[in-house]
């Protein structure tokens, strides 16, 4: 059990009812924890501040760890967690940007978030902003053609302000082979790491290539 899991356990236990997505939920936990605890710049009291780094949960599925971390970091009250997927709650089984403070994009249908994150990265570059865009995709989501459109485009546009974290918990029915090599072939700076090792996660997230977007393939056993 990781320290992040220990720390978040009381919050995670509030979020009941989406157990079918447990492996999806918990596969992201360590990466998201390091991202929100040590890497991203944000103000939870002003979640749409222009000065924030952007995070996109592209795969949308299994947002339990995401919600627990947002609550822990103060984006919304812990009391919301009890209302997960309830009629009067703001937290659905897929996140809604218009209801959940801190959520950048409403996702759920696979293959939408990363292309939108590419648009955000292009827009930030146009605004001459030095803020970063992080997008998290799943290996199953990598079956979607639009993901590869976005990977092709980001590499072509040399979007150095974009980092894509591919959580590889081997949920895809199709064998994906060496994902990092695939990203690299599309012009990304790509690395594979242990998706539970906080030092590896931190080092990978802090890396910014000057001319290429960064892909982090986080392997989860």
């Amino acid at each position, binding site marked *: 059990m990781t320290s992040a899991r220990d720390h978040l356990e009381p919050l995670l236990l509030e979020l009941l009812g989406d157990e079918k997505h447990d492996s999806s939920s918990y596969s992201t936990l360590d990466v998201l924890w390091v991202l929100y605890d040590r890497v991203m710049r944000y103000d939870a009291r002003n979640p749409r501040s222009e000065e924030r780094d952007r995070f996109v949960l592209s795969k949308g599925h299994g947002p339990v760890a995401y919600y627990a971390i947002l609550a822990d970091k103060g984006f919304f009250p812990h009391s919301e967690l009890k209302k997960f997927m309830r009629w009067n709650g703001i937290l659905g089984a897929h996140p809604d*940007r*218009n209801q959940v403070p801190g959520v*950048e*994009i*409403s996702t*759920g*249908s696979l*293959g*939408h978030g990363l*292309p*939108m*994150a*590419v*648009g*955000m*990265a*292009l*827009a*930030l570059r*146009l*605004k001459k902003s030095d803020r970063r865009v992080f997008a998290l995709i799943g290996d199953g989501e990598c079956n979607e*053609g*639009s993901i590869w*459109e*976005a990977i*092709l*485009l980001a590499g*072509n546009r040399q979007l150095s302000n974009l980092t894509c974290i591919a959580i590889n918990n081997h949920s895809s029915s199709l064998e994906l082979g060496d994902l990092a090599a695939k990203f690299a072939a599309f012009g990304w700076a790509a690395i594979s790491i242990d998706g539970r090792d906080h030092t590896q996660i931190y080092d990978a997230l802090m890396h910014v290539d000057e001319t290429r977007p960064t892909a982090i393939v986080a392997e989860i056993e």
Partner: protein
Amino acid sequence: MQTTMRQQMVETLEDILLQDERAVIVLAEISYSLFHKQRPEVRERLFNLGIMEQSMISVAAGFALEGFIPCVHSITPFLVERPFEQLKDDFCYQQLSGKFISTGASYDYSEEGMTHQGSGDVHILRSLPGMQIVVPGTPSEFDALFRASYANGANTYFRLSLAQNPFDTSTQFGKLAVVRRGTQATIIAVGPTLAPTLAAVEGMDVTVLYCATVAPFDGETLRAADQSSNIILVEPYYEGVLAQDICAAMQHTPMRLESIGVPHRILPNYGAPEEHDADIGLTPQGIRRRIERFLGK
């Protein structure tokens, strides 16, 4: 030579780029060659992504998230049908605003076959909550209606066609225009069907309303103008899209309704758009025959 709606789009968008730094243009190759990349504002804020229409919409939504007003353009099926879920999820569900401009209406690309036809665009876009739909009848109407709605915070679709009326009609965004008044029927002509409709009703005692904004539909003007409860709809896409709006507008008045437009069937022929018009009866003679039959003449 007459300006096309597509040429007008380039002129209008380039002018808006100059005036409003929030404007960006997002393309997937189509019409890229028409823009003037030597102009700095075009070079900086025109994004040609390559042939990836799904990502074209998603990337545009990313720009909208960052405060830009994305103007997205392609051939009708590649703007509306292929990335329909991106329009629904990435713009409508997110409550973002974008401007979507098609070229190649219905069978404008008749020589290219069914894959390039787009008669179903207005029908399916009507299913998206809040999607505004504009069907201009001339290039200058496109220019005026685009400028009127460009920064309105909504999602707006502009349906550009090869066919255009040989005259401009004074029309406001979201309003029907009363073109002529009569007592036997009220005819609603959408966009470029106005000219053949006016030719069709020559000598007839009918009201003609011009509709360049399909959604939101101006039911109030229809209610005020109609004296007959005989309503005839002439649309340049799959027939009957506005029937639901007309019924809603006239719900307290018994009425008869005739829908004239592109029939809901596969059109396998190539040839010229005018040949399709003749085949399906979207000509002055064909429209007049349908009106006379409906009115029992």
